[in-house]
C-alpha cells in the first residue's frame, strides 16, 4: 500500500496553477506532497492513514481503484454517453435498411421489457431499463416515430411505477427500486405519450390493412407507404409492432386508473389489464415469426435471450450508468430472459387484477383475510405497493372509511358509536395509527412483514394496558351514576377485547410466517407448535367473547318475536362456526406439539443437543418478541417443558387431537358453503388431521418395537401445519 501512496504523492508534486478555490483570509494553499512522501516512507506494510471514525462501514465502503469487482467508475467501453453516441452505439435510424430498422426496433422493445421486469425484481433502474441509450436522450429519437413513442411510454410508465412505490414506501426494499438520480424520468412531453402511441398505432394499423388487402383494392390504398420493403414480411412486422405498442398503452392506462382515489378506476383498470394480458399473448405468438430467420443466424440460446427474435439488441450499455449506482460496488446484473419477463408481467397483471376485483370489504376482518390471501401468491413489490395505497389513503381505509369507524365495527359495537367522542382520546388516536401501520406492514414482503409484526406487538400491548387503565377509571367515575351501562365503558370494554384479539392475531401470523420463511428447523417444531397453540387458544377466546357480545347487542336492538328469540338463544348456546374454525387450528397445533414431544420423549428423535447452548436458549431467541410483549401472559420456557415433558403415545392415543380436528372440520363445512377460501382451508385441515391421525396410530402400534421407523415432517398439504410421514428405513 505504501508504494502506491508514494507514487500518487509523486504525481501530485506540482501545485495546480489555476486553483478553483482561491486562498482566503484564514486559508492558504500549501503543497503537501513532501509531507505525504515522508509519511509514505515511514509507513510499513499493513499500516493505514485514517480518520478517527474509521469503522467497518468505512472499510467496506473503501474501493480498490481499477479492481473490476469494486470500481464502478472503471471505464468499460465508453467514458460518456456522448462518446457512446458518437461511436454509433445507438444510431437513429437504427438502420437505413427499413426492414432491419424495424427488426431492430422490435428487439429494443423486447429487451426493454426484459429490463423492466428485472428492475421490478429488485435491481436498479439505472442499470436495467436506463441501460438503453435511446431512453437517456429523449430528443434524439424524435425522427423515429415508433421508437420515440415507445421510449416515451416507457419513461412515463417507469415514472408512474416509481411514484406508486415511493408513495407506499415502508422500508429499504424500495431504496434500490426508487433510485432515479440522474435519469431523464421527467422527459419533456412524456405525458403526451398516449396520443403519440395512438397515432403510431393508427399508422401501423393502416399499413397492416393495406398489405392484407387483395391486390385489386391496393390501388386505393397506394398512398400508404409500407412499414418496410419486404412485402412478404410486412404483415408479420405490423402485427409484432402493434401488440407491443398496445401492451404499453394498456399497461400505462391500467396503472393510471389504479391510482384514482377510493378504487374508483378499478373497473376500467380491469379492462386495460385484460387487454394487456391478451396483447402479451400476441407478443408471445409473434416470437415464431421473428425467430424465423428474420435476422439470419442467432447464436445465443433462445431460452436465455432477452428478445423474441433471439438477436441481441442495439443501443444498450449497462456500464454507462454504473457510476450512478455508487457507493455500492457495480453489480453484475443478469437481465431476465424475454420469456421470463413475459411470465413476470402475466403474474403482475394477475396480481393487479386481484386488487382491482376486490370489492372493498368495509369490515377489517375481511380486509385482513384478503391481504393474507393475496400475499399467498407472493406478489412482487409493484403489486404490493398498489395494494397498500388502496388500503390506506389519507389515513382512511380505501380513502373512504375513517379508521375509528372501522375499529368500532370490528369490535362489534353498534353503528351509532362510530362518531363517539372517545375517539379524541390519545390512546384511541394511537390505536388508529397502529391499525394503519399494521395494514401497511401486511403489504410488505414476508421477511420484512414478520420482523415488523414481531416488533409492533409491544405497541399493541401498550395500548391494551392503556385501555385497561382507562376502563378502570371510567368505571370508577360512572359507578355513582345510576345508568345501566355507560356508553364509554361499553365502548372501552369492546375495544379492549378487540385489541387483545388483534394482538393475538398478529402473534399467530408472526409464528405462521416463520414456517413460510423456513425459519424453524425440525427439532424446533415442537416448541413452535406449542407456542402457536397457546396463542390460538387466546385468539379463539377473545373472538368468542366478541361474537357473543355482538349477538347480544343485535338481539337487544331488534325487538323480535318471541319465537325468533328462542331460536337465537338456541343458536347462541352453540359455539359459532368462526370459533370452531379456530378450534380446529388449536387441535392441530396441540396435536402436533404432543406428537413431536412424544417422539422426543419415547423414540428419542428430533432431540436438540448442541455444544454451546440448550433448547432453553433457542426458545428464548425464537419467541423473544412475543415474550417481551407478554403475549400471552405467563408463558415461558418452563411452562412449555411442563406441558410436553410427559407427553406419551399411550395418552395421545386416548385423546386424539387429530380426530377432534377432523370432526370439527367436517362439522363446520356446511357453515362456510359460500366461502370458497375457507372451505378450501377446511379441506386442507381435514386432510392433515387425517394423515397425522393415521401416522400417530402407526407409531403407537409399532413405534417402540421397530427402531427402523423414521418419522419426518412435510408441508405438502399446508403452509404451516406439517404432515407426519412414517417410513421404515
Amino acid at each position, binding site marked *: 500500500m505504501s508504494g502506491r501512496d508514494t507514487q500518487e504523492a509523486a504525481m501530485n508534486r506540482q501545485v495546480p496553477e489555476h486553483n478553483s478555490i482561491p486562498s482566503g483570509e484564514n486559508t492558504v494553499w500549501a503543497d503537501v506532497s513532501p509531507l505525504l512522501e515522508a509519511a509514505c516512507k515511514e509507513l510499513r506494510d499493513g499500516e493505514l492513514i485514517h480518520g478517527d471514525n474509521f469503522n467497518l462501514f468505512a472499510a467496506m465502503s473503501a474501493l480498490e481503484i481499477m479492481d473490476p469487482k469494486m470500481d464502478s467508475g472503471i471505464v468499460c467501453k465508453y467514458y460518456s454517453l456522448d462518446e457512446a453516441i458518437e461511436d454509433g452505439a445507438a444510431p437513429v435510424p437504427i438502420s437505413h435498411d427499413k426492414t432491419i430498422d424495424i427488426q431492430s426496433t422490435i428487439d429494443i422493445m423486447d429487451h426493454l421489457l426484459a429490463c423492466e421486469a428485472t428492475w421490478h425484481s429488485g435491481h436498479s433502474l439505472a442499470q436495467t431499463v436506463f441501460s438503453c441509450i435511446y431512453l437517456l436522450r429523449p430528443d434524439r429519437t424524435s425522427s423515429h416515430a415508433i421508437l420515440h413513442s415507445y421510449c416515451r411510454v416507457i419513461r412515463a410508465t417507469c415514472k408512474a411505477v416509481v411514484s406508486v412505490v415511493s408513495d407506499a414506501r415502508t422500508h429499504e426494499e424500495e431504496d434500490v427500486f426508487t433510485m432515479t438520480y440522474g435519469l431523464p424520468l421527467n422527459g419533456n412531453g412524456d405525458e403526451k405519450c398516449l396520443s403519440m402511441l395512438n397515432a403510431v398505432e393508427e399508422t401501423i394499423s393502416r399499413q397492416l390493412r393495406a398489405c392484407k388487402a387483395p391486390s385489386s383494392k391496393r390501388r386505393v390504398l397506394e398512398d400508404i407507404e409500407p412499414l418496410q420493403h419486404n412485402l412478404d414480411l410486412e404483415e408479420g412486422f405490423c402485427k409484432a409492432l402493434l401488440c407491443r405498442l398496445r401492451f404499453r398503452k394498456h399497461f400505462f392506462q391500467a396503472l393510471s386508473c389504479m391510482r384514482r382515489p377510493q378504487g374508483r378506476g378499478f373497473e376500467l383498470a380491469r379492462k386495460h389489464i385484460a387487454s394487456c394480458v391478451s396483447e402479451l399473448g400476441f407478443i408471445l405468438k409473434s416470437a415464431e415469426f421473428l425467430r424465423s430467420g428474420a435476422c439470419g443466424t442467432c447464436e445465443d440460446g433462445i431460452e436465455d435471450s432477452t428478445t423474441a427474435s433471439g438477436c441481441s439488441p442495439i443501443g444498450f450499455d449497462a456500464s454507462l450508468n454504473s457510476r450512478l449506482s455508487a457507493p455500492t460496488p457495480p453489480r453484475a446484473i443478469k437481465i431476465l430472459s424475454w420469456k421470463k419477463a413475459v411470465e413476470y408481467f402475466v403474474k403482475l397483471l394477475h396480481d393487479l387484477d386481484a386488487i382491482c376485483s376486490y370489492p372493498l370489504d368495509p369490515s377489517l376482518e375481511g380486509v385482513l383475510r384478503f391481504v393474507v390471501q393475496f400475499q399467498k401468491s407472493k406478489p412482487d413489490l409493484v403489486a404490493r405497493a398498489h395494494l397498500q395505497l388502496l388500503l390506506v389513503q389519507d389515513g382512511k381505509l380505501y380513502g373512504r372509511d375513517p379508521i375509528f369507524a372501522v375499529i368500532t365495527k370490528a369490535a362489534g359495537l353498534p353503528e351509532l358509536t362510530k362518531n363517539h367522542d372517545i375517539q379524541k382520546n390519545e390512546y384511541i388516536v394511537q390505536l388508529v395509527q397502529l391499525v394503519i401501520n399494521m395494514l401497511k406492514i401486511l403489504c410488505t414482503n414476508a421477511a420484512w412483514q414478520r420482523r415488523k409484526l414481531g416488533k409492533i406487538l409491544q405497541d399493541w400491548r401498550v395500548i391494551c394496558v392503556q385501555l385497561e387503565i382507562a376502563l378502570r377509571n371510567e368505571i370508577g367515575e360512572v359507578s355513582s351514576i345510576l345508568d345501566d351501562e355507560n356508553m364509554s365503558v361499553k365502548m372501552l370494554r369492546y375495544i379492549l377485547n378487540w385489541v387483545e384479539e388483534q394482538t393475538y392475531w398478529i402473534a399467530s401470523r408472526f409464528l405462521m410466517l416463520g414456517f413460510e420463511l423456513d425459519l424453524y428447523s425440525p427439532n424446533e417444531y415442537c416448541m413452535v407448535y406449542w407456542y402457536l397453540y397457546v396463542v390460538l387458544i387466546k385468539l379463539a377466546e377473545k373472538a368468542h367473547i366478541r361474537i357473543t357480545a355482538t349477538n347480544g347487542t343485535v338481539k337487544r336492538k331488534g325487538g323480535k318475536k318471541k319465537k325468533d328469540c328462542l331460536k337465537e338463544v338456541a343458536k347462541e348456546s352453540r359455539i359459532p362456526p368462526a370459533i370452531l374454525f379456530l378450534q380446529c387450528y388449536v387441535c392441530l397445533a396441540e396435536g402436533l406439539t404432543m406428537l413431536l414431544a412424544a417422539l422426543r420423549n419415547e423414540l428419542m428423535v428430533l432431540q*436438540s443437543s448442541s455444544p*454451546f447452548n440448550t433448547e*432453553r436458549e433457542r426458545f428464548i431467541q425464537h419467541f423473544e418478541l412475543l415474550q417481551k410483549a407478554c403475549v400471552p401472559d405467563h408463558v415461558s420456557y418452563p411452562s412449555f417443558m411442563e406441558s410436553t415433558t410427559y407427553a406419551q403415545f399411550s395418552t395421545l392415543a386416548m385423546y386424539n387431537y387429530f380426530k377432534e380436528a377432523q370432526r370439527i372440520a367436517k362439522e363446520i363445512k356446511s357453515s362456510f358453503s359460500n366461502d370458497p377460501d375457507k372451505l378450501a382451508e377446511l379441506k386442507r385441515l381435514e386432510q392433515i388431521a387425517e394423515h397425522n391421525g393415521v401416522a400417530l396410530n402407526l407409531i403407537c402400534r409399532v413405534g417402540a418395537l421397530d427402531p427402523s421407523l423414521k418419522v419426518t415432517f412435510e408441508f405438502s398439504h399446508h403452509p404451516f401445519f406439517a404432515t407426519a410421514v412414517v417410513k421404515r428405513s
Partner: protein
Amino acid sequence: MEQQKNEAVTTTKAEFDPSEIEYVSYGGEHHLPLIMNLVDQELSEPYSIFTYRYFVYLWPHLSFLAFHKGKCVGTVVCKMGDHRTTYRGYIAMLVVIKPYRGRGIATELVTRSIKVMMESGCEEVTLEAEVTNKGALALYGRLGFIRAKRLFRYYLNGVDAFRLKLMFPCPGIHPSLSMMADRDESQMHHEHIASGECPESHRCS
C-alpha cells in the same frame, strides 16, 4: 455483507486424515494473502483489503486458518463488539476449499472462534448465510444456531439470507454446560489484544 461457504459438494475429494489438519490462529501479515486468496476464490462478494485488515488487525484471536501439509485449505474471520444492549460475536467469513469440505474442518474453525468469543464475554454470536447454502445452515444448526430472521435479497446476487444466532446460556441459570467443563485449553494459542485498541497506526493530525 458476509458470507459463508461450506457446501458439501461432491468434487474431487482430497485424501487426508483429519489429524493432518493443523489449525492456527491469525499470526500476522504473512497470513493475510492466504485468507484473501481463499475468500476471493470462493465467495462472490467483493471485499477490499481494508475490510480484511479491519477484521484481522482488530480481532486476530478470532481468526483461524486450517493448513494441510503447508497448504491453507480453510479460514474463518470474525469480530466482536457491542451491539445495542448486548456484547456479540460475529462470524464474517468462513471458507473451506472444495476438496476439503465435508470433513469437519469448517466446524472446527468456527468452534474455535466461538469458544474465544464465549470466553471473552459475548452473550451471543450472529452471522448471515445464503438461504440456499444447505451445508452452512446444517453446520450452524448443529452448533445450536437458530434462524432468527430472513433478510430479503440480502446479497448482491439477489439471494435471501438467514440471520443465524447463537445465544449462550446466562451464567448462573445454567451453571454447568458440559462443553465448558472439558474445554481443551491446549488448542488456544493466540495473542490477546486489548479490546478497543486499534493496531492500525494513527497518523492523521
